């Protein structure tokens, strides 16, 4: 499949989350069904810094993982027929390695391991200053597709 990029406006066609929960600013390269990468800038006025934590602002691990899962979603929703579809998380296994701080650029890289019958397994990394801050194995689904394959009760 041909690779392309998505700016913040184009991204909204492929990623159902919206600010301030959209954890991607720009998709620098997506190869549908194969990989997606991009970044989120982290200005100090991000909504979670004042509360996580008042004297030591850093990006919550759950939101780092969310960023990876959102990017993996883009790798799938850019496949023909999947544009605009909603995804759900099924299971994630994550390892956090470094704090992610205000004013840093959070680089997000994801790869699809498999995409079959509405279920995607993939991996992702969050990178700051050239170092891996977090990495995850993820399983997400497009319920609308998955449900087509399930036994009827």
């Amino acid at each position, binding site marked *: 499949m041909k690779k392309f990029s998505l700016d913040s406006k184009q991204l909204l066609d492929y990623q159902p989350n919206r600010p301030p929960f959209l954890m991607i600013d720009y998709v620098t390269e997506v190869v549908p069904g194969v990989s997606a990468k991009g970044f989120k800038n982290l200005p100090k006025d991000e909504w979670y810094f004042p509360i996580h934590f008042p004297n030591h602002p850093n990006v919550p691990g759950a939101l780092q993982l969310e960023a990876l899962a959102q990017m993996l979603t883009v790798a799938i929703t850019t496949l023909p027929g999947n544009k605009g579809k909603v995804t759900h998380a099924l299971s994630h296994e994550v390892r956090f390695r470094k704090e992610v701080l205000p004013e840093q650029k959070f680089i997000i890289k994801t790869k699809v391991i498999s995409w079959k019958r509405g279920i995607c397994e993939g991996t992702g990394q969050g990178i700051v200053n050239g170092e891996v801050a977090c990495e995850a194995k993820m399983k997400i*689904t497009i319920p609308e597709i998955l449900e087509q*394959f399930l036994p*009827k009760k």
Partner: protein
Amino acid sequence: MDNKKKYEKVFMDSFSISKDKLKKDLKYNTIPQWDSVGHMSMIAALEDAFNITFEMDDIIDFSSYKTGKEILKKYKVNIS
């Protein structure tokens, strides 16, 4: 390993259950492990075990341990 043992093993591994659970006709959504995701994992494991690819209708119809044996016959996999 014969087909019956392979078939049982897929169920036991996919759903983390013991063999005695298979004596009654285990059905979709009657144990927490055989949910939507478990169903797809089990189907994929059967495809790997028997080197087949299920048609969509057969994945939908595969609603129990017993029914699965009948469906596999279509793919020339006999579970005695």
